[in-house]
């Protein structure tokens, strides 16, 4: 995983709440067995509409999505994160994220950070003033800055540390392999086993 410290890029406003995972990437794209190449699937239905924000010339190359509350609700599909990442998004800002989506983001190096609802609206207004404007998200300082306006971004310490260090989860856990083996040694025998098949 690449380290994330600070990022500057075009901010795209997604002025909707409750953007669920079926809108981020419809189920039909989940059939793929690869982990990359989902850029065409992102917001697939909405992108058929020429007026949709990502179809507007000012937002080509956008890498920071500024969304309404409850972003990423619905299914656990990590494809939603891959689609955002493959499209080129590095950061999603929203007043509130669905838990699983936020967890998945942290694991893929996509920064999902919260920003107060009033400040999200302020950012939208600043983008409307000058579409295509860049925003800088500084993970070290926990800030987002756009057009002279700065606001705090919310992220838990642990995810922040891992993003800053670019650390992979499994490697971290396997440092505790002896403890896992000790735990397994004391598990009760009634606990279910899938093998052998009875």
């Amino acid at each position: 995983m690449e380290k994330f410290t600070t990022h500057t890029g075009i901010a795209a406003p997604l002025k909707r709440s409750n953007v669920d995972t079926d809108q981020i990437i419809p189920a039909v794209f989940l059939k793929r067995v690869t982990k990359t190449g989902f850029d065409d699937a992102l917001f697939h239905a909405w992108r058929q509409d020429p007026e949709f924000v990502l179809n507007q010339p000012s937002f080509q190359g956008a890498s920071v999505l500024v969304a309404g509350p409850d972003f990423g609700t619905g299914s656990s599909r990590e494809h939603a994160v891959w689609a955002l990442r493959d499209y080129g998004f590095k950061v999603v800002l929203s007043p509130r994220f669905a838990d699983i989506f936020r967890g998945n983001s942290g694991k893929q190096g996509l920064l999902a950070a919260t920003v107060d609802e009033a400040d999200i609206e302020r950012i939208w207004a600043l983008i409307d003033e000058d579409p295509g404007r860049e925003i800088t998200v500084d993970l070290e300082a926990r800030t987002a800055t756009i057009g002279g306006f700065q606001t705090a971004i919310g992220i838990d310490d642990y995810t922040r540390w891992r993003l800053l260090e670019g650390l992979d989860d499994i490697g971290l856990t396997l440092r505790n392999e002896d403890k896992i083996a000790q735990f397994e040694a004391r598990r009760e025998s009634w606990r279910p086993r899938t093998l052998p098949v009875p």
Partner: protein
Amino acid sequence: MTTDASARPRTLAEKLWDDHLVVKGENGEPDLIYIDLHLVHEVTSPQAFDGLRTEGRPLRRVDLTIATEDHNTPTLAIDKPIADLTSRTQIETLRRNAEEFGVRLHSLGDAEQGIVHVVGPQLGLTMPGITVVCGDSHTSTHGAFGAMAFGIGTSEVEHVMATQTLPLKPFKTMAINVEGTLRPGVTAKDIILAVIAKIGTGGGQGYVLEYRGSAIRALSMEGRMTICNMSIEAGARAGMVAPDETTFAYVQGKPHAPQGQDWDDAVAYWRTLPTDEGAVFDAEVFIDADELEPFVTWGTNPGQGVSLSSSVPDPADIADPNQRSAAERALEYMDLTPGTPLKDVKVDAVFMGSCTNSRIEDLRAFASIIKGKQKAEGVRVMVVPGSARVRLEAEAEGLDKVITDFGAEWRFAGCSMCLGMNPDQLAPGERCASTSNRNFEGRQGKGGRTHLVSPLVAAATAIRGTLSSPSDLTEEA
């Protein structure tokens, strides 16, 4: 467990957490939690197997892992090669991966194949006191047994495959108290739709929900599974019901249920699991079961639901501007006019299935209403059992005959029209009464319109062709 921990009154969720703690996280790090059972299906596993391969890591505990094919499987002509190339690739990839890593797999055509959340309980692998994960948000279903069960993303699937653990932050706990007695025709599905309408699709975020109270105690395991299944629609990672005699009776004798001394040990432990007297929940919600009526959703998220006897709500009455505009957009998508009695809404299709409502008891309930009747003209009715085993059971009871005599389609097991990854989809603009769990835009097919309902409401709707409850049938008769 330390004496300290057992002295303080704890909730069911806290007890399970403590008993699966491998490493306690310090300085804001998450805890490392042991996973007893890992369920795998074709959609969220290929990239995880791929990750293991790339890193040269083995799958740590194949004996705690089981896979089934469900999301993509056709529900007709299952002996023929799958027509859709990408669906076929995904299923063939699972078969190759299971073979390579030594994972037990139930493939299409096998008696134990089916929706992963139906298969776990029916095999007796799902039991109280365990942790269950799956790369699927409706893993919350298994919490009905007094297990800690939640959906995970593909990275976490890979993590569990490699380590049999997950780094997790403790959840907060919320008690959902449902006291009273359900009226006839009101079911577990109506309870959970009412809960979600009350707390909202984000109301459970960060919480494990524990469903409690006399109305929950009175439910069968199937009913409890229906409720826990939809916990995720309230934003919660997990939902649970404390294990009791109903739970033990259901588990006992299943193929993987503990036996002999193991059974006695297990039950003795399971009896210690219910939330202690005096334990404190972070939040509490109260629902009066006596007041509940059959429920139906009118919008495009599971929280947009009302009693079936009422009318399509008017967004103008909603104070919160965000919710108001969401309601406006939902009504436009659903092509509904405020004030229309919901019972006047005509449907094109009825879908009876999904991990919410496709177990044998659900099929029995559906069949009890339609028996000897004819479906409404022009309405397509599809009945999809949750697993091949449920299909066999239903056929042994003659339910298939009741269903086909009614004019409905009797299909093979799988997720089917719950999410339309296989050919079972709504056409654009079609309206469906569905026993599934999500009414998102396009969920059942592009442009399709979904009303979430119970099996009883689905049956009555299939008979009358408009959203209906069983009581509408008796009034007519």
